[in-house]
């Protein structure tokens, strides 16, 4: 939960007001396009890189001679610590087990199949990955898609249509919102992560029926995410599943950020929170974050998957997933499960858990306001004030740490934040350096909203903090 001090809220509102007034004044002199898409902070977003998004990468320096309205690439790069890419298990760069096999599959199957899955686009690799993904997640069957975004937007219309009800969490991702809107069903929102409010909404909706006609709903689907990418917190899955079972609603779990990254053996929030995968009707996930590839999957019962294979437009009309990417996922899952003959997978999982917990506790001790639950590799640091966003971002980059800053409209207006994504490939020295830089920049920019714990207690727990 965000605890926003009153003074901070007032000063942030005042800053936005000042920005707005300044913008209006500038209006007299020249046209400016959109306040929150202010081009002057353009250099904080879309920074190109020139190497793999591993724990250290090369950020390309950009220059501008018209106040950041347009940016040109230079040939200089600076080696920075990567705290922004979704590389939870460290598969982003070339890996000793995965890359040779990927290159082999590239030579065998070529970069693309140039056809849709139902025509000539299904190779043995696709069938193998569908089986493996189903086994990994703990469901009877699975189906693959070439892009995570399309998975959500094309599946939800196949499962529910007019006359159905979708109840989705208020902070769900844009792909889920698009899919829900495209399906034609009625959409209702429940308060973020609140099973009590979900129950209220369910009772009200079942008793009331469809709007205007009051006919009973055809079916109800509740959509939640495993880890919310802007909050870093885990979903209250056991309680939500209990509520859904009581009211006979179907559940759809989007594990884009949590599959492979949390859980004892990497199987996601179900494993972490002790929920049986058979209780969740549809489990969706992407391969972009923890497996270092691209694409998404849906895992459910055999009947649902058969139905989707017949009717889902993304399966019938879209080019199938690129075979080397499929091979990368197969190899990554094998490493995680330990089927490659080593225990690198278990090591990675242990390391990401240790890293996340260490980093989060250290940041909290320094006095930053950090959101998110324990064990979650995503941690937002609250900035609030709009002026601090580019300040934090640029200063960190100058000190060779690359962070991601997010503001309105991806987050509520007053709650701008910097989001850190920890990876299993970060070593303890990397994290210590990052903490050092963030602490210094935090002092400069003034975002330590809470009192820091005295250093004596900190030293007792972690003796490498010099």
């Amino acid at each position: 939960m965000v605890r926003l001090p009153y003074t901070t809220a007032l000063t942030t509102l005042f800053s936005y007001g000042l920005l707005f007034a300044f913008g209006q004044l500038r209006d007299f002199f020249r046209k400016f396009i959109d306040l929150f898409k202010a081009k002057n902070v353009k250099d904080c977003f879309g920074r190109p890189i020139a190497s793999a998004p591993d724990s250290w990468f090369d950020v390309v320096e950009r220059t501008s001679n018209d106040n950041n309205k347009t940016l040109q690439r230079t040939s200089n790069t600076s080696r920075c610590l990567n705290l922004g890419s979704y590389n939870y298990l460290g598969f982003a760069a070339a890996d000793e087990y995965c890359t040779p096999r990927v290159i082999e599959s590239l030579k065998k199957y070529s970069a693309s199949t140039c056809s849709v899955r139902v025509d000539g686009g299904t190779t043995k690799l696709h069938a193998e990955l569908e089986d493996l993904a189903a086994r990994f997640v703990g469901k009877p069957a699975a189906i693959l898609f070439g892009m995570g975004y399309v998975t959500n937007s094309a599946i939800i219309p196949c499962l529910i249509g007019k006359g159905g009800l979708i109840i989705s969490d208020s902070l769900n991702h844009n792909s889920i919102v698009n899919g829900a809107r495209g399906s034609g069903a009625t959409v209702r929102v429940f308060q973020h992560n609140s099973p009590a409010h979900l129950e209220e909404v369910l009772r009200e909706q079942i008793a009331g029926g469809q709007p205007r006609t009051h006919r009973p709903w055809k079916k109800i689907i509740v959509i939640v995410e495993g880890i919310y990418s802007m909050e870093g917190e885990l979903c209250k899955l056991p309680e939500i599943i209990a509520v859904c079972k009581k009211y006979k609603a179907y559940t759809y779990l989007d594990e884009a950020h949590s599959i492979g990254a949390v859980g004892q053996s990497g199987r996601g929030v179900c494993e972490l929170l002790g929920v049986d995968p058979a209780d969740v009707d549809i489990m969706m996930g992407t391969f972009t974050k923890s497996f270092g590839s691209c694409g998404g999957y849906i895992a459910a019962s055999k009947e649902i998957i058969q139905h989707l294979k017949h009717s889902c437009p993304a399966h019938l009309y879209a080019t199938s997933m690129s075979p080397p990417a499929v091979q990368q996922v197969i190899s990554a899952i094998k490493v995680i499960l330990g089927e490659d003959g080593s225990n690198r997978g278990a090591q990675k999982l242990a390391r990401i858990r240790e890293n996340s917990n260490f980093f989060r506790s250290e940041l909290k001790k320094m006095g930053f306001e950090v959101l998110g639950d324990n064990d979650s590799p995503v941690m937002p640091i609250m900035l609030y004030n709009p002026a601090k966003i580019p300040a934090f971002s640029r200063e960190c980059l100058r000190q060779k740490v690359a962070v991601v800053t997010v503001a309105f409209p991806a987050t509520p207006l007053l709650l701008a934040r910097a989001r850190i994504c920890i990876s299993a490939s970060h070593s303890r020295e990397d994290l210590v350096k990052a903490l050092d830089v963030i602490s210094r920049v935090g002092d400069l920019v003034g975002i330590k909203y809470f009192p820091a714990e005295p250093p004596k207690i900190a030293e007792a727990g972690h003796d490498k903090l010099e």
Partner: protein
Amino acid sequence: MDMALPVVNATAAVLARVSAAFNAPLARAVVFGVHIDGHLVVEGLLIAVIVFQLTRKSYKPPKKPLSEKEIDELCDEWEPEPLCPPIKEGARIDTPMLESAAGPHTIVDGKEVVNFASANYLGLIGNEKIIDSCVGSLEKYGVGSCGPRGFYGTIDVHLDCEAKIANFLGTPDSILYSYGISTIFSVIPAFCKKGDIIVADEGVHWAVQNGLHLSRSTVVYFKHNDMASLASTLEKLTRGNKRAEKIRRYIVVESIYQNSGQIAPLDEIVKLKEKYRFRVILEESHSFGVLGKSGRGLAEHYGVPIEKIDIITAGMGNALATDGGFCTGSVRVVDHQRLSSSGYVFSASLPPYLASAAVSAVNYLEENPSVLASLRSNIALLHQELSDTPGLEISSHVLSPIVFLKLKKSTGSPATDLDLLETIAERVLKEDSVFIVTSKKSNLDRCKLPIGIRLFVSAGHTESDISTLSSSLKRVSASVLSDYF
């Protein structure tokens, strides 16, 4: 007039008597120094009546909200439908499985076949140079890009690819998307909002339909590839409609329609667009790298300057033998999408090896324009050989690399048609080792064009491949369709 006068007189008399009665000092009482006149009594009575009514309890039908127990009962009684409908008996479920690259010859289910099911128009699957550039990319960048474009997911190969494509087409800039179909259904909602008018061809494929639906604009469909229908629709929408002048208007067409193989006549569309002042969104997935003297697409084919088309989108999963898509246009068109296109902002970027494959593919096309000539001669040969197939006719354009065969006479039910076509495809594969496919339709697709057999011709096919296909197809369709004709 003579009716009015007595009425007026009577009314006046009544009024005079009433006012006299009112103003007569009635009770001769003086209360607090105020004479009690007659009208005061009537007014006092009225006030007493009003006060009396106000003090009565009003009758509203009782609004009883449902009690907790009633809600519990309703929730217990409610039964949802199953999440998916049961699968129909006899529905064909198995898809053929490839065991090698999807080039002109491939291995399906253990057997070597001639492949007419992959949209590998320039024969770039298996090309050495492209594979080498991909290997280099994989070793340098890994497989995935691990982030959206705004958050360190922009790799220098993406920027190179965008510049290369823009250079190739002659536009100022272009933007890369990470998946073919997400391109068009992100571009349309980024530009068309509620209240705009879109005129679209009725044969556009599902991704375009989804984009039109998500945009919440008013969509009007015109008859498939019929310019007269388009002209009359545009006329109807703009004639005398003052409001139409102020809202944004778009025409959405595909260059080569996936559902029928027809080619849109771009020169006429541009003329109509300029006459009625609409903007054109052109979906070029199957014509990029295929049409035109050097493969630059439909605009080059018709000799239309590229600036006249406002937005061009294309998926790269066809001629360029890679994945992803791009959109190009003027600088403002491209810049706008970098912040408002949901498929670009909220999704991870294209894997870098696919972007370098795209760059190599475009380089190859620039260096070897003769590959287009081989493609064109293959298509022409196929048209010639299949022109006398019993029971099937070619309904696609002579230059389209998608050769669309539909039944000369439909049986009347789409399910039976599909059954016949699939039987033909299965037998051709089993008996003559030629891999062909029928066009598939999802139940969410609202396009009503007839289904058929789709043949994807590639520059890598040889003449013998084409003759194998045509002889096999003629033989099998003669036997399967003999009961019907």
